[in-house]
């Protein structure tokens, strides 16, 4: 009731400090802390020794030891996994960005009658769980000699990420004024010339946006790499991490350091490219 009076009394918009503000702030702060606590805990626990960890699992470290990182990295396995993840990430992202840019452009600029059907098929493809295709993909990749290779992960991963990436690119291309294209057509520029010389030069930021989210998705992907790759030397970081954790079950700080190493790349990307990532998630998920 007092809250209502306070709202009435003040006339300026939004930012007013009322009892409601304080209560909401307190509740949300507590909730946010719960959401990020596991990551914060992971961060500070990696500086403990195993002995200290076992003595007090959840408290802050009293000493700063880098033994966990040395222990995690020393076997060399994590480095190999990280390189594998990097290759697959680069390959799948590059392929997805190129293919999605072309298709997203077509979807935004050309309106033949069948385009609605294309759009609907792409939306249907987005709803299909990847595991439905799992067994047939194993057969397909084996017949093509691509099972247990990086290319064998790159191709299906890109194929499953392309539909949503197309919609993100389309969301960018529809913002371009049509007069731009029509004027070029009047000048006698061909369709490919228009794409190459008018659309492409201003599409780089959008392509970069698609690239960043795909890098995160591919880096974190688990289902395809765990099924398609068997050789330890070719495994990706999330898959290798599950092996690593099984082997280091007795040394928790080392385990946590390994988890942190697997988690850090997407977090760094997020810190640097927050704006691009959020705009991509908004552009791809919220369709009119």
């Amino acid at each position, binding site marked *: 009731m007092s*809250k*209502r009076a306070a*709202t*009435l009394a003040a006339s300026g918009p*939004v930012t007013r400090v009322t009892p409601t503000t304080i209560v909401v*702030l307190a509740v*949300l702060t507590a*909730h*946010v802390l*719960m*959401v*990020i606590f596991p990551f914060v*805990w992971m961060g500070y626990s990696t500086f403990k020794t195993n002995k200290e960890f076992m003595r007090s*699992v959840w408290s802050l470290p009293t000493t700063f030891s880098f033994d966990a990182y040395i222990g995690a990295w020393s076997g060399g396995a994590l480095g190999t996994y990280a390189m594998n993840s990097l290759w697959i990430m680069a390959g799948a992202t590059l392929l997805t960005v190129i*293919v*999605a840019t*072309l298709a997203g*452009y*077509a*979807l935004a600029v*050309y309106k*033949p009658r069948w*385009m609605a059907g294309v759009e609907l098929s792409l939306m249907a493809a*987005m*709803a*299909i*769980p*990847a*595991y*439905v*295709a*799992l*067994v*047939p*993909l*194993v*057969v*397909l990749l084996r017949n093509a000699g691509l099972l247990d290779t990086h290319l064998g992960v790159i*191709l299906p991963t*890109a*194929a*499953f990420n392309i539909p949503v990436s197309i919609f993100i690119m389309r969301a960018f291309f529809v913002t371009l004024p049509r007069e731009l294209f*029509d004027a070029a057509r009047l000048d006698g520029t061909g*369709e*490919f010339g228009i794409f190459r010389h008018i659309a492409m030069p201003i599409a780089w930021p959008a392509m970069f946006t698609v690239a960043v989210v795909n890098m995160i998705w591919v880096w*974190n992907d*688990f289902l395809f790499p765990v*099924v398609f790759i068997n050789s330890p030397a070719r495994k990706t*970081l*999330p898959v290798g991490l599950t092996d690593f954790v099984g082997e280091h079950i007795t040394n928790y700080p080392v385990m946590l350091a390994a*988890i942190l190493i*697997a*988690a850090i790349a997407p*977090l760094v990307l*997020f810190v640097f490219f927050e704006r691009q*990532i959020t705009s991509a998630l*908004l552009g791809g*998920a*919220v*369709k009119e």
Partner: protein
Amino acid sequence: MTSTSRDVAPKEQTRAALLFLLPAFVLIAVFVAYPIVYAGWLSFFQWDGASAPAFVGLDNFLRLATDAIFWKSLGRNLLIAATAIVLQVFLALLIAYCLVRIVPFVSRLFLFFYLVPVMVSEICIGLLWRFLYNPYFGLVNASLKALGLGSLQRGWLGDSATAFPAVVVVMSFTYLGLYVLLFVAAVRNVPETLYETAEIDGAGHFTKFFSITVPMVWDAVRANTLLAIIGSLKTFSLVFVLTNGGPNHASEVVSTYLYKAGFSSFEMGYAATIGFAQMVLTAAGAFIIFRYLKRARGGSER
């Protein structure tokens, strides 16, 4: 002639459109569409993945029809969807309203934090939560003990009564941020004047939330609900790393069941059947819901 190009696409434009779409078409056809059709075909075979597949007619489908584990797994996927609508979509809308309308000065910072789990691999998140749920030194048990509820302590992921709810809790924490982001954008687009008018009438936040925000962002609610349902049917990694469907199938979902059938028991034909059936059932469900919604909407408008 060229000025009407947006309506009547000339031949050259149609050709260009087809060529631009071709690479996407090829990749999706080969690695998404064809495997699904092939899964349907494999459903009629018994196959260990190595020897020659043996045609068994409808045997796989008959087995599936009476496979309690499959139906319970599918039921859990739907339960995940239902909880996601409440614990992810609705909760996110509430948080988004608070961030935009009540504490805008922290909205950017908090949104950043909410998005952290969305960025990190589900494998990492699952491994971290295994520490929180640890029966010996886990934070969940320690907190219960501190609150004097020590009798409730248990091995959350290893107990068949709590394994599935424990997984669902992790999911809500993990994916919430995506919906907060989507709703913050939607809530920001609600015209300020609507709130001002309501405030003159003495409306509190409760009234404003339910009678202005919710109706105004209803499109986003629908889109996000759909997104949550699709995500819930796709779920794999978190379940895999937290419980792998156990103990004794107590937290099994369709994806983990398929994975085990195909790649632990090497019943490739049956695994294909599980996936294919899941997709057909989902498509049928979606079709029925859309028809029903269409009819309901048509009925109310006329």
